[in-house]
């Protein structure tokens, strides 16, 4: 358990509405990530953060924005949700293990865009 919580855990929304997902961590990790998981695609990186107010894009960042105003919270916003953004969203952090860093995941948020 890496002390990661995600909220909400489930959400149904309509096309065109804004949606914000929250990731909260309790262990003061510097790196935080947002992934989406879809059948046949595995886990794809949306955005990541390497510190407060320091973020960068991943491979599937179009239609998403992020913010990190404090270490413990990393927010993912869908400005205008589309049906193609129906997915399961996972937040992750990296934490040292042995002689390096590894990634640990939150429980996920299941998002359905109608």
């Amino acid at each position: 358990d890496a002390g990661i919580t995600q909220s909400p855990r489930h959400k149904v929304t309509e096309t065109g509405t804004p949606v914000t997902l929250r990731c909260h961590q309790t262990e003061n990790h510097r790196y935080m990530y947002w992934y989406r998981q879809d059948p046949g695609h595995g886990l794809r990186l949306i955005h990541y953060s390497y510190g407060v107010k320091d973020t960068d894009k991943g491979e599937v960042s179009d239609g998403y924005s992020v913010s990190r105003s404090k270490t413990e919270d990393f927010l993912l916003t869908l400005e205008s949700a589309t049906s193609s953004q129906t997915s399961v969203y996972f937040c992750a952090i990296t934490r040292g293990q042995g002689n390096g860093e590894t990634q640990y995941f939150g429980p996920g948020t299941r998002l359905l865009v109608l």
Partner: protein
Amino acid sequence: QQQVKQSPQSLIVQKGGISIINCAYENTAFDYFPWYQQFPGKGPALLIAIRPDVSEKKEGRFTISFNKSAKQFSLHIMDSQPGDSATYFCAAAIGNQFYFGTGTSLTVIP
């Protein structure tokens, strides 16, 4: 472009059998290769990991075999059990950047 290619997409094994999942990569700068196990409705959980300076790592029934020259690594699950039924992801990492395979759905039949 998929940085890490994983196969098979799905796998059915009899209880007590050996499950083998394979992954391949191209970027020789990768320096960490973890495997994750995911049960339905849960987040992926770290199962076992290896660094490229060793060719094999074993933890209980789970073994990673690593072939640096072929740029391939695999997960072997010995004496597979129904409780091992899950989706497995391989990954390759450079520092804090992780790249995941597309996943293998394993079903172990009693």
